[in-house]
């Protein structure tokens, strides 16, 4: 397997930390492949990617926020709010392209509000987005009266339930978004600004980095990603529930951390985060195949996160 890995030019350029995350995934995958014959089959692996795609979508935005020195606890409720508003528009007969665009704008608006309070208001990201966590959830519940919205148009549902060359469309969508996020982080000035602001905000400011705009951008991207995840999910389910997205923020933070993002800011990787998402997805899928109780799945997730952090600490020197 290592011969295959080193023969790919893409993997030769992979960073040391990402290689470690990948190694973790390979070990976990190998264990499941040995224990369950149905794990290492094409349909099941696509299934893992499909199940990981929602979390990956959220985690892409989360990683950028964490790298810029913040955190976004409000992603789940933002997704719920955009889901019910977008679904309402569709059910009311608005063309679904317009409704989706509207929902994505609402996601960015939520992110803008978070970012404005943090960047201009000088409030702590944890507290602001904790407030957002309640606020956006409440808006979704109030708007719907707590009831799910059914009857989404088939045209819209076909978007997220189809496949492209055998790959489920949610995986394709998230893969494209991941490429965008990777380009932003490693190829554009904005990516350098995320790293600089998270690494040392005062030094970044003195060096002429637009700190306020950088923070705003991070939260707006996070809000946008939350709304994309919401669209994918309601498309698949055919309904929008105001209670959807519970604990999404924690899965996304876990994936980012497993992938090497430092909650102190300034460090993180899109590739690492994606592998982190797949690790979490693999764990759930594999344990389900082995008929392990859901309680133990939760236990395994917790252990993986802590083990990942311990390895991180041990290998990074201090």
């Amino acid at each position, binding site marked *: 397997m290592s011969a295959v890995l080193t023969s790919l030019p893409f993997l030769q350029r992979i960073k040391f930390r990402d290689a470690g995350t990948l190694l973790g995934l390979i070990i976990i995958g190998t264990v499941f492949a040995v224990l369950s014959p149905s794990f290492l089959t094409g349909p099941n692996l696509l299934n893992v990617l499909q199940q990981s795609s929602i979390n990956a979508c959220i985690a892409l935005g989360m990683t950028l926020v964490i790298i810029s020195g913040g955190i976004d606890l409000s992603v789940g409720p933002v997704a719920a709010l955009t889901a019910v508003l977008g679904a309402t528009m569709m059910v009311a007969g608005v063309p679904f392209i317009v409704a989706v665009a509207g929902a994505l704008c609402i996601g960015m608006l939520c992110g803008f509000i978070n970012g404005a309070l943090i960047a201009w208001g000088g409030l702590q990201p944890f507290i602001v987005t904790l407030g957002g966590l309640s606020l956006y959830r409440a808006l979704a519940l109030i708007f719907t009266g707590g009831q799910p919205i059914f009857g989404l148009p088939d045209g819209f549902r076909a978007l997220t339930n189809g496949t492209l060359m055998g790959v489920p469309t949610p995986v394709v969508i998230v893969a494209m978004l991941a490429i965008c996020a990777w380009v932003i982080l490693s190829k554009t*000035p904005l990516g350098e600004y995320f*790293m*600089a602001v998270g690494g040392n905000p005062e030094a*970044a400011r*003195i060096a*002429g980095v*637009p700190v306020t705009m950088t923070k705003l951008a991070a939260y707006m991207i996070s809000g946008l990603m939350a709304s994309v995840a919401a669209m994918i999910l309601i498309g698949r389910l055919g309904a929008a529930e105001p209670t959807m997205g519970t604990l999404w923020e924690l899965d996304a933070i876990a994936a980012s951390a497993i992938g090497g993002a430092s909650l102190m800011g*300034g460090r993180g990787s899109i590739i690492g985060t994606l592998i982190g998402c797949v690790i979490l997805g693999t764990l759930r899928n594999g344990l389900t195949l082995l008929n392990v109780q859901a309680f133990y799945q939760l236990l395994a997730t917790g252990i993986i996160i802590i083990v990942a952090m311990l390895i991180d600490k041990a290998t990074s020197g201090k």
Partner: protein
Amino acid sequence: MTPRLSLSHIEKAFGAHKVLHGVSLTVQPGEVHGLLGENGAGKSTMLNILSGVFSADAGQINIDGASVTIGSPRAANLAGVAMIHQELQQVPELSVAQNIYLGAALRRAGGLLVDRAAQEAEARRLLAPLDASIDVTAPINSLRVAQRQIVEIAKALRANAKVIAMDEPTSSLTPTEFDRLVEVIKGLAARGVSIIYVSHKMDEVFRICQSATILRDGRLVARVDLPATPVAQVIELMVGRELSHVAHQSFATDKVLLQVKGLSRGRAVQDAGFTLHAGEVLGIAGLVGSGRTELLRLIAGVDSAEAGTVEVSGVAVGSGVRTRIKAGLGLVPEERKRDGIIRHRPVTSNIGLPAMRGFSRFGIIRRGKLKARSEELMQEVRLRPFDVSKPIGSFSGGNQQKAIIGRWLAADTKIYLFDEPTRGIDVGAKAEIYDLIEKLARQGRAIVVVSSELPEVIRVSDRVLVMREGRIAAELGTAEITEANIARHAIPAL
């Protein structure tokens, strides 16, 4: 008489950099003794050794004739030495009594509970002769600085301190509060407590101290009796080192690049103005806290001014760091780790930050171009060849400083604002930084250098401004730049 405290032949080095060369100091019981010297003379290191923060490489410490080993701040306390830092080390939310008993709480119920009542009663007793108006139950952060200082003194007395060292205790006191402190210090001395008093302010030293030890460049220069020794002589002993005779070459033109008018911010900077020409190096001297750093930050737009204007090439520039950078100003900050570098990021990213858009095409950074330019710049600033893709945090202070200078070169900055350009940099790299400043001047750029090291100011400057208490106290032309002249204007009340 057996001295209360004697430090003999103290030696201390940080790496290869020796900061104390066999310094001795003696204090008698009940004596108030000044410890004098310029910034970097070794006063702080002496205090840190006395209070157990550092341990000396060689030398002996005796208290009341007995040899003591002071290996930690706690050991210093047990030996009877208390230190009152310039930045008071207190827990702001806790009460006066709790702060006095911090780490040594009085207990009851077999040691399980803190005996607050007893602590408060004791605190009241300790404070009574010092300042009876202080409420021992009030939180520390509700007190004025002067009162907080009194609380620190009470804490020292609680620990039965025989020697109390005070580092610049009056830097934030009003004259009336200072008078009060003088009374307290005299009262302590009368009770046999010895005081080591560190201050830049000659009038205070002459009013309080009976004697003083003068350090220069980590060496003992003299022990003098006060106030018998004339002020001028004390200052000469403090600053009168041989001038470093490197011929200074001026590249100043008469083209005005920067004009600063009436910049003010609180008490830190008041009505500061000057003109800077292309090719000119302007030194700004003054004591720590005289407003030099604050003035630079106002010019760079890092802090916003309450009044005043900044003009570059005759055009007024708006506020904000980014606006100022676009206008051609760049700050090389004093605290490199805190304000300068992004530690985990490669040298290229640190260099490219202000000009990232310039290195991009269609929104994508051209890494190859950034790397090539970084390498070119590093050659220009004579950085030993190294891998610019490694994190900047893995390089020495001198190399980090060169990278920060490279950052502004990359951004095509015209006016360089250096704050303590050689702080924490070894001697070899220092000379290179001076050469670099000269090179910038030769290329027609304008440079401001804030420095606490007078030889440095004299070495690099065409002209020197001396700041004192937030104001520009004097402007010295090339011929007038001498240590004595600078000191005369920098030190208040002379």
